[in-house]
């Protein structure tokens, strides 16, 4: 056991392991690229949707259930399905990751919107604010902490699942996990897993720090 951890330490720290096209630096960059892009796409879909149903109060049932359906889809199955249609491209990976991330964003955005005190909205309308003004100047700022939580959740899920790219021959940190398992190189498997965990935790901490800075005035 001790030897395994020692080998793992060597693997993670050797300069050789970090360099080159198969190196950790490249894989890390690929992993971040997949994760951030997928989360951005998911946010572009999920945020407007969550805001719209939260603001109008219409279509909530359909939207929440549809996005929960996306959450329940087995990711590997979805990857293979899209692969059979699209061939070997990044499509299967992004479709699967976006399908995973959208539900967390939609449900949290919607929850944040419904948590806004109806009296506040009434008061805003009473002052003569139009619909979009209520949305952007009253509801959105008040819902923002929950919306941010949704984005954080989505990002962490996506980072942990972006290993799936390796399943269809692409890079990212999943490469170490998949190759290590196939070649029974336990150090490589653990190295990949540890790196994924570190990236997920680091991104979560960064986002929560950002959240604290953004909403400083509220908690004070």
């Amino acid at each position, binding site marked *: 056991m001790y030897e395994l951890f020692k080998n793992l330490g060597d693997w993670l720290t050797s300069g050789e392991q970090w360099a080159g096209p198969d190196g950790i630096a490249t894989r890390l960059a690929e992993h971040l690229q997949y994760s951030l892009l997928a989360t951005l796409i998911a946010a572009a879909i999920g945020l407007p949707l969550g805001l719209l149903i939260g603001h109008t109060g219409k279509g909530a049932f359909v939207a929440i259930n549809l996005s929960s359906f996306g959450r329940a889809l087995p990711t590997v199955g979805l990857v*293979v399905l899209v692969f059979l249609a699209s*061939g*070997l491209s990044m499509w299967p990976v992004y479709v699967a990751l976006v399908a995973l991330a959208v539900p967390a964003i939609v449900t949290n955005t919607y929850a944040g919107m419904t948590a806004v005190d109806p009296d506040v909205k009434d008061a805003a309308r009473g002052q003569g604010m139009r619909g979009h003004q209520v949305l952007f100047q009253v509801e959105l700022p008040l819902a923002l902490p929950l919306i941010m939580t949704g984005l954080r959740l989505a990002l962490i899920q996506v980072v942990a699942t972006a290993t799936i790219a390796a399943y269809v021959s692409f890079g990212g940190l999943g490469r170490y996990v*998949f190759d290590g398992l*196939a*070649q*029974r190189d336990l150090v490589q498997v653990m190295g990949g897993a540890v790196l994924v965990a570190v990236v997920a935790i680091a991104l979560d901490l960064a986002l929560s720090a950002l959240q604290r800075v953004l909403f400083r005035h509220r908690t004070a």
Partner: protein
Amino acid sequence: MNRRTLLGGLFAAASVPALSACSSGITSLDSEGTTTSGGGSSKGGLTIGTANFTENQVLGYLYAAVLDAAGVKTTVRPNLGTREILIPAIKGGDIDLLPEYQGALLHYVAPKATATEEGEMQNALTMALPAGLQVLPYGMAEDSDAFAVTRETAEKYGLTSLADLKKQNGKLVIGAAAEVKTRQVGAVGLKDVYGVEFKEFKSLDSSGPLVKGALKKGDVDVANLFTTDTDIQAEGWVVLTDPKNLIPGQHVVPLIADRKADSTVRKALAGLGNALTTADLTELNRQVDKDKKDPEDVARAYAERKGLTATG
């Protein structure tokens, strides 16, 4: 004394467990030939492990079907992974029996082995296997690795053999399972033996939907498939010949822990090995892959049809 008992006697004298592989490649074990020094017992039942592809699972369930009929209690643990996981598992006692392939197993336990003929490989395996493990006589069915290209690719680059790939060094993309990248019967051997270098290695699956889908769509030029894959014929893919014998023969062979290898198990598996042909195995694979049947049902139906589950 007939040839079989003579061979059996010779092997027994060399304290090698019964491996009376005759020239036809098929061996039936008569009871006097099976007395082994180890003397295992299958009384407590045995656990069959299988690798992560259809055919190996079908074989695992076939083993289970004939063993159950012989009164041996079996548990099948399907889809455990690759040889790199399975061999340590059988060594460690997590599983007791494994459907294996002669050449691939030999290369795994003895990477420098030169034997390619069935009988030689069987002997080499017996020598090279770690203590506590043995191979039983190999069956008729054979499933070797193949490197295939589409007909269009074959015509475009003039490819008929693995040697032809060298002319296109650095141009072609190969798709195969991740372990093939570091295996002798894979990227390593293609480079050593044929001097072939690919533009890129894409890690996909073992003759499964990913690698075949990628070959069909042209995302990879060369794909590592199994010769018993029904899609090779259906799609008209060209299997590249292997003039330098990189790819060893791959008769199906049971790998078993000594402690479980008693005469009941030997007899049941030998009966299956003598009945199951390559064509049969290809057909069983097709039923699972194409007709989406359950591998266990397919295996049991075959065993019954061939009278392999008749008790006694």
